[in-house]
């Protein structure tokens, strides 16, 4: 019930802000050598929207989101961030990446740094924020993900779920406009998944724009504003979660949904 209300607020905010989409992919094509991984992708993500990307393994989900922060280079088409081509000459790639946070399946925390230093690295080195202020903000973020008592620990001293929450805090430390999540709970023991999903849900409630690759149907149903289903580099179907899960149109979507539900 509470969730519903906050979602509503979110969409009202969208209408008020009334800008174009935060991210717009236009006819994006991406190949690795001969292998075409994304074919003519068109997606728009509005401010505050949570987009879940579904699809079988190898369908191009990771590649899709990795194109958004230029971890992968597209071959054709355009990607716009706030209306601006991310490949335009005056778009600095490092600056772009501070505006688009990314969280990985394998956490990828820096093992030689304490939790707090993992989070402060980018604010200090990239954004030139003074150390005291960066630390204050990092502690604030740790509180948000429920790990303020772990600030002085090394990553290997934490559980997988805690590490992933630190990774989320680390990405948030740059104040990104969009967060990308690539199967962030897939490497976790089942009992640790919930905590990470809670953190993500909270982020969504606060109005963060999110693109989430996940197999967690519960999360998709509850949190997503929109779901896209991909197969072999093509967006097969796109809809609100309830519609897509209960009434899939394409046979491939139907087969996939029936398999995972």
């Amino acid at each position, binding site marked *: 019930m509470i969730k519903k209300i906050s979602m509503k607020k979110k969409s009202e905010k969208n209408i008020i802000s009334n800008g174009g989409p935060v991210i717009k992919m236009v006819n994006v094509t991406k190949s690795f050598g001969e292998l075409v991984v994304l074919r003519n992708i068109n997606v728009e993500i509005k401010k505050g929207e949570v987009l879940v990307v579904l699809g079988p393994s190898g369908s191009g989900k990771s590649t899709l989101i990795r194109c958004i922060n230029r971890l992968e280079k597209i071959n054709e088409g355009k990607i716009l961030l706030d209306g601006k081509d991310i490949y335009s000459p005056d778009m600095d790639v490092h600056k772009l990446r501070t505006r688009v946070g990314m969280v*990985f399946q394998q956490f990828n925390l820096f093992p030689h740094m304490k939790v707090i230093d993992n989070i402060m690295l980018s604010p200090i080195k990239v954004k030139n924020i003074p150390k005291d202020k960066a630390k204050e903000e990092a502690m604030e973020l740790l509180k948000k993900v429920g790990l303020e008592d772990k600030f002085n620990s090394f990553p290997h001293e934490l559980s997988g779920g805690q590490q992933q929450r630190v990774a989320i805090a680390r990405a948030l430390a740059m104040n990104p406009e969009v967060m990308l999540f690539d199967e962030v709970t897939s490497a976790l023991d089942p009992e640790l998944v919930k905590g990470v999903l809670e953190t993500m849900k909270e982020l969504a409630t606060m109005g963060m724009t999110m693109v989430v690759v996940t197999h967690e149907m519960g999360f998709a149903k509850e949190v997503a504003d929109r779901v896209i289903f991909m197969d072999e580099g093509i967006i097969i179907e796109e809809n609100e979660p309830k519609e897509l899960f209960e009434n899939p149109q394409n046979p491939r979507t139907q087969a996939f949904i029936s398999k995972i539900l």
Partner: protein
Amino acid sequence: MAGQGFQIDLFIKILPELLRGAAITVQLTAFSVAIGTLIGLFAGMARISHYKIFNLPSAFYVEVIRGTPLLVQIMIVYYGLPALGFNLDQYTSGILALSINSGAYIAEIFKAGIKSIKKGQTEASISLGLNYMQTMRYVILPQATRNILPALGNEFIALLKDSSLVSVIAISELLRRGMIVYSRTYDAWTPLLGVALIYLCITIPLSRAVQFIEKRWEIHD
């Protein structure tokens, strides 16, 4: 006195002289490994660069140095550079030759060390907006350096032994001191076994230390 085998009296008498040589040997090696590490760091990073202007010269350097004898390199530096107008004393020539030599081996060590760090680390770092150099400095190299410390230790030991070759350009390091004693006393066994013994006294504890570090890290990882 000649041909009487190892004489402990003589050994004790010449020990201070040999130890002064050992000190120079250790000093030469330490300087050379330090400079070699700096060379190796940059040559190693250049080696894995995608840019040909970096990786080709680096590959050339590593191949040439590893494919030619150290003794030849020492001679070229000592006799060759003056012909080009660079007059270096023996000691500087020795350090220069040893540094260039160890730099090539250490470049390969760094290359392997950097490659041993998972791709996810680089991806996470650049995703946070850090550039290539920042990623190297704050994320990759600290981890790589820790991984390669044992290999660097072994390189130090290898160079310590190889540094005996600079005795040919009359640097008064350990082996040369031994040879001087030999030419004075005509006793080969005492000074040369003494020299060997002193090398062992340095290398054995060092290689034990390297093994110890390796073991400890295996447990912790």
